[in-house]
């Protein structure tokens, strides 16, 4: 640093300046493009959720009517409730399963490990539509057999959606937690054992707290994946198990209206709050 500052050469500087300014230009362009493509649609959507007109094409002045209407809309309330139930349960379960899977993959050696690893990551690469159909076929088959063998009358609904969400989201949790496990300093666990901690105490007081940021990040990912999933949910839903994305889709089919914009804007805000909350939580853990 200091040697750069005291460098008297006039020959080097212009070249550097040119390079720097080119870099800045590329960066600047990149930022602008990112904003245009990523955020412009979102911003437009949000703005039009305050539009007094029913039409998307014209601005007729500011109103909160759509939000008020949405609040009083029974169907929206039920869809939101369904979405939350599915997201919370599937997040909880997939976080536990995903964390355990990550531990198993990172910490143990077993014969079919490679196979298990490959199979587990499959949902991440399999096209969502394939996964959706596969689950649909699976549930149908399972229901048929349960009916034949035990006389159990089961049907598609929140249960099938939740199971489907767990199935596709726990590998994501496993990936995130495993990344954190990979650079985990194992002498910390040995130090705990050395100080008299049993295996369980070591896990409870050392491993788990240190993995927590990874687990929270994984849980957040699972929650986000669940709350906005459309394809898999669509194929595995039943009567009365409409989630928010399904509800929005149903409305859009009848034409894009400001109440859809309002609903989407609320979902956007909710996820922003969620992400910020988790960031703050992680900060506090390490501060």
């Amino acid at each position: 640093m200091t040697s750069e500052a005291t460098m008297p050469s006039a020959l080097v500087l212009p070249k550097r300046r040119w390079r720097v300014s080119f870099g800045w230009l590329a960066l600047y362009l990149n930022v602008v493009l990112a904003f245009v493509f990523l955020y412009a649609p979102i911003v437009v959507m949000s703005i039009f959720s305050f539009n007094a007109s029913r039409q998307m094409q014209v601005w007729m002045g500011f109103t909160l009517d759509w939000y008020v209407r949405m609040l009083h809309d029974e169907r929206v309330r039920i869809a939101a409730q369904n979405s939350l139930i599915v997201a919370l349960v599937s997040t909880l379960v997939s976080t536990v399963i995903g964390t355990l899977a990550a531990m198993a993959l990172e910490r143990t050696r077993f014969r079919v490990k490679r196979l298990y690893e490959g199979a587990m990551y499959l949902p991440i690469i399999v096209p969502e539509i394939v996964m959706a159909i596969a689950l649909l076929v699976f549930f149908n088959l399972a229901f048929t057999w349960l009916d034949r063998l035990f006389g159990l009358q089961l049907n598609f609904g929140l249960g099938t959606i939740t199971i489907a969400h767990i199935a596709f989201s726990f590998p994501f949790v496993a990936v995130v937690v495993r990344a954190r496990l990979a650079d985990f300093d194992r002498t910390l666990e040995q130090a705990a054992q050395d100080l008299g901690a049993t295996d369980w105490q070591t896990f409870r007081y050392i491993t788990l707290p240190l993995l927590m940021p990874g687990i929270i990040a994984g849980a957040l990912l699972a929650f986000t994946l669940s709350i906005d999933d459309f394809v898999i949910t669509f194929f595995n839903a039943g009567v009365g198990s409409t989630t928010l994305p399904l509800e929005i889709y149903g409305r859009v089919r009848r034409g894009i209206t400001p109440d859809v914009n309002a609903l989407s804007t609320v979902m956007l805000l909710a996820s922003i709050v969620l992400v910020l909350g988790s960031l703050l939580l992680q900060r506090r853990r390490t501060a």
Partner: protein
Amino acid sequence: MSTSGIELTVGLTRSATQGETGMGGMRPLERPIDVELVELTKVFDNGVVAVDRVSLQIHQGEFFSLLGPSGCGKTTTLRMIAGFEHPTSGEVLIEGRPMGNTPPFRRNVNTVFQNYALFPHMTVYDNVAFGLRMKRIPRDEIARRVREALQLVRLQGFEERYPRQLSGGQQQRVALARALVNRPRVLLLDEPLGALDLKLRKEMQLELKHLQMTVGITFIYVTHDQEEALTMSDRIAVMNAGRVLQVGTPVEIYERPSSRFVADFIGESNFLRGRVTEVGPGEVTVALDGGFPISVRCDQPPARGTEVTVAVRPEKIRIAPAEAPEANGLVRGRVEEVIYIGTDTFYVVRITDETVVRVRSQNDRNRLDGGQLLPVGTPVSLDWAPDAARVLTE
């Protein structure tokens, strides 16, 4: 080394040594054995023989060092004592009990890890209290003992800090306090000063030694730094390639190395090759290659005709100009290099075509060279006391 002269000022200290009243005056080797290794061997899955039939007896209250170059098996030995590594064969006994499959948390030993392994998500207080909490000690006793331990390592007032807010030396003290607070029978330390800079390391060496004498706990100390081992230890085991080559006090190890490796690894030695020509009682005469017959003290003299190596420390050699009246030298040669380092002068003296001898001459008024540096090319004569040299057969 006696610990009887040390004033015990801290509570932790007193209770740690309470059961040993009257033992203070005992010499370490007369005390009971705390840790015994019997033919301890570790072969890793990849076939590396990390520890090879190591047998040691470490006595209560001893400061015992495992000294050897990197990769010689020190850490593996320590980890087998702590219980992190399972011996391939042989046995670890702690307080006379074979450890077998005893897990680390049931052994009455604690470890200070090389990188300290402080829990990053806990404060200094919680780090030090961890072991006591695991043992479900009452809360107020924990508070008292943690306070004492932090006092012992002079870290009062740091309770609420996190490890990353501490300097390397302070982290090192926390690691010490965290182990000592449990009042273990034995403390295992794996190169605990390795990460500190030289000045701090020197300070901590003395402090650690003092601490060990204060608390009276057996220390097994791993280091690759021979100076560190000499400074701190009651006894040293010198290791190489998984084997223990020699065990002894620092003086024994330095003055009477039993092998060429030890003579070379601890301090500096000149190695002169020769053949035994005469064997007397406690003494042999060795004809040095291209030199003169010299007589060397030797406890177990090899047979006549044996090829041997004679080891002499550079500082034990007297150097004088060849024509000086007192030059009744054992070896003659010519100064090839002169290195002046203030307190001392190093001479490199060529005695044969193949052999040079390094001489360390202290720069005081009593020097044989008359207070002047001997210039390069001066013919000189070298001699040493008969007990200053060692006959090595390996």
